[in-house]
C-alpha cells in the first residue's frame, strides 16, 4: 500500500516558564493513501501537537528536536516557510475543532471558502466563487447560491462545521487532517458530520487523519487506529484489532470507559489517576502508575513495540515472552473472544485489507 505521509521519530518540546515540556516523544506513524487513520488519546496526550507539526502550525514556543515527516518524498520539517505555505490548504488541509470560532466573523462565507483557491490556484475570482458555491452545496449547505454573502454568525454550529469542511476540501487535498471535528457539536450533529466526512472521502479520494478522544466516533470512520498516551503512541492496529483485541492496558482502560448498550454495571469505568507531567516524563512506561497490571520493569524501562499481527503493534511489557500471563478485564476478554470467533468464522480479517469497516 502506498504511504502518502510518513512520520518518523518525531520529538517536539515546548519551552515554558517552568521548563521544557516533552510533548511528543519519538512518535512514528504513517498514513496510507485513501485510508482514515484515527489518533486517539485524552487531552494533553499530544495528538493535536503531532498534526500541527505536519501543518507547520506549531506554537512559537514549540520546537521539533528530532524526526522527519515525509510527504511525497519531501521532508516537511525541513521545508521552507514558503514551501509549507504552498502545501497548506492545498495538498494538506485541516479541519479545526470549534466551528464557532474557526470562521472569520467579518468575512462572507463564500469568500472564506474561495480563499484557498485564490491563494493556490491561478483561478479567476469569479471561477473561484463558483467553485466555492459548488463545494458548499456538496457539504450540504442548502441554497448555497443565496448564502454565499452571509456571515458565519448567521449559521448554526453544525452548518458552520460544514463550511469549515468545505474550506478544507475546496482544493481537493491529498491529506485531510481533522482535529476533533465533532467534539464541539451536539451528538446528533456529530453523526451527520461523520457521515459527511465518509461520503466526501469517497468523492474526493483523500486520506484522512482523524484526531479524537472519542472511541465511539473512531469506530464509525477509521480504518486504522493509533492510541497515544503522554506524548507517545502506545498501540496501533486496524480498527477491529484495536476494538476487539487490544493489548495495552491503557487501551483496555479507554475501551472500558466507553459506554456501550450492554454496559451492565450502572457505574461507568474511569481510569484512575492522571497523566504524568511531561516536564519530567517517567523513565519507563508513562502509564505505569495508573496501570493495575504494572510490573517492576514498567517503572524502569520504556517498553518496545511488540508485534501482535502484521498490522498490530503494542508497546507494553505484558507482551514480553518473560511476562506473566495476565487476565484482561472481563469486558475486554469478552471482546477478544468475540473477535476470535468472528475471525474464525471469516467475517472479519485480521489485517486492514478488505475494508474492515463493516465489522460494526
Amino acid at each position: 500500500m502506498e504511504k502518502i505521509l510518513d512520520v518518523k521519530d518525531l520529538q517536539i518540546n515546548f519551552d515554558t516558564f517552568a521548563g521544557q515540556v516533552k510533548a511528543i516523544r519519538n512518535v512514528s506513524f504513517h498514513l496510507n493513501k485513501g485510508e482514515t487513520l484515527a489518533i486517539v488519546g485524552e487531552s494533553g496526550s499530544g495528538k493535536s501537537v503531532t498534526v500541527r507539526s505536519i501543518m507547520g502550525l506549531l506554537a512559537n514556543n514549540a520546537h521539533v528536536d528530532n524526526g522527519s515527516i515525509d510527504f511525497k518524498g519531501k521532508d516537511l520539517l525541513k521545508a521552507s516557510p514558503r514551501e509549507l505555505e504552498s502545501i497548506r490548504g492545498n495538498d494538506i488541509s485541516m479541519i479545526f475543532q470549534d466551528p464557532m470560532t474557526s470562521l472569520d466573523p467579518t468575512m462572507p462565507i463564500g469568500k472564506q471558502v474561495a480563499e484557498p483557491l485564490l491563494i493556490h490556484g491561478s483561478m479567476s475570482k469569479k471561477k473561484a466563487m463558483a467553485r466555492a458555491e459548488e463545494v458548499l452545496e456538496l457539504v450540504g449547505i442548502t441554497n448555497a447560491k443565496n448564502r454565499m454573502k452571509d456571515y458565519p454568525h448567521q449559521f448554526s454550529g453544525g452548518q458552520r462545521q460544514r463550511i469549515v469542511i468545505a474550506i478544507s476540501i475546496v482544493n481537493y487535498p491529498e491529506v485531510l487532517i481533522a482535529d476533533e471535528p465533532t467534539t464541539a457539536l451536539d451528538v446528533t450533529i456529530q453523526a451527520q458530520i461523520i457521515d459527511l466526512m465518509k461520503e466526501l472521502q469517497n468523492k474526493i479520494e483523500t486520506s484522512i487523519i482523524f484526531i479524537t478522544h472519542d472511541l465511539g466516533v473512531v469506530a464509525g470512520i477509521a480504518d486504522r487506529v493509533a492510541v497515544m498516551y503522554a506524548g507517545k503512541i502506545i498501540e496501533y492496529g486496524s480498527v477491529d484489532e484495536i476494538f476487539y483485541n487490544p493489548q495495552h492496558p491503557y487501551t483496555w482502560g479507554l475501551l472500558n470507559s466507553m459506554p456501550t448498550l450492554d454496559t451492565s454495571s450502572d457505574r461507568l469505568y474511569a481510569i484512575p489517576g492522571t497523566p504524568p507531567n511531561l516536564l519530567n516524563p517517567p523513565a519507563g512506561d508513562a502509564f505505569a502508575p495508573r496501570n493495575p497490571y504494572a510490573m517492576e520493569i514498567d517503572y524502569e524501562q520504556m517498553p518496545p513495540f511488540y508485534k501482535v499481527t502484521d498490522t498490530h503493534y503494542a508497546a507494553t511489557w505484558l507482551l514480553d515472552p518473560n511476562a506473566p500471563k495476565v487476565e484482561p478485564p472481563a469486558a475486554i476478554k469478552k471482546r477478544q473472544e468475540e473477535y476470535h470467533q468472528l475471525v474464525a468464522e471469516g467475517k472479519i480479517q485480521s489485517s486492514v485489507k478488505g475494508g474492515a469497516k463493516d465489522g460494526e
Partner: protein
Amino acid sequence: MGKYILKRIGYMILTLFIIATATFFLMKLMPGSPYANQAKMSAEQIKIMNQQYGLDKPVFQQYLIYLVGLLHGDFGTSFQFNNQPVSYLISSRIGPSMQIGVQAIILGTVLGILLGAIAAIRKNSWVDTVATFFAILGRSIPNFVFAVLLQFFLAFKLKIFPIALWDGFSSSILPTIALAMAPLATTARFMRTEMVDVLNSDYIELARAKGNTPWQTVAKHALRNSLIPVITIIGPMAVDLMVGSMVVENIFSIPGIGDQFVKSITTNDYPTIMGLTLLYSFMLIVVILVVDILYGFIDPRIRLSGNEGSN
C-alpha cells in the same frame, strides 16, 4: 436600522435639551454680576443694560426666550466682547480648532493603529517594548506639559516652528503633535490588545492553514477584525481632544474655541460659556452617535442581526 437611528436622534435632542436647561439654571445661580468688569456703571446704566440683555424679566421667561433663541441658532450676546453674539464668536473661531482637532485625530489614530498592530505582530520583541513605552508616555505626560516642551525645544531653542502665531499650516504642526499624543497612545494600546486577541483566535489559525503567508493573514483577516472595535474608542478620544485643545490652543495662542472657553471662564462671560458648553456637548453626542452607527454598518454581526447596536 433607520428606526434605530431615529430613536437615537430623539435621545440626542432630549439630552441636549436637558443640558441646555441645566446650564441655563446653573448660570442663573452663578455668583457675581455680568458687568463686574464695568463696576463704575451707575444704577441707571445697569438697569438699561439689564433691559438690553433681558435680565429684568422673570427667570422662567428668560429661560423660554433662551430656548427659542437656541432653536434659531441664537446663543445670546457675549458679556465680554461688546455686544458680539456668541454664535458669531463661535463661528469665527471654530475653524482653527477644527483644523488642529481633525489633524490630531488623523495623525494620532493612524500612527496609533500602525504602532499597535506592529507591537501585536511582533509581540514581546523590542518593537513591542518601544511601542508600549511610547503608549505609556503618551498616556502619562499631560498634553500641556508636552505642548510646552515642544514649544520650548522645537520653537524656542531650535526655531524650526513658530512659537505662538496662527499663520498657516506650519503653525498648526506643533499643536497638532501635542494634541495627537493622547489619541496615539490610546489607539496604540487598544489596537495592540485587540490584535493580540485576534491573532490568538482560531480563525487566524485557519487562515494560516489555508496557506496564507503571515502578512496575508494580517492583511486579510487580522487587521479588519481588530480595527472594528477601535472605532468604539473614537468617542472617548474626542473628549480628550476637546479638553486638550483648551490648553494647547492657549499655549500656542491659537484663536480657537478652546482658547475662547478658557478666556470666558476667567472673565465670567456666562453666555459664551453656555454656548460653548452646548457646542461641546453637541459635538460629543454627534460623535458618539456617528461612531455607533458606523460600528453597526461595519460589523456584520450587528448590522445583520438587526439588534439595537452595542450597549
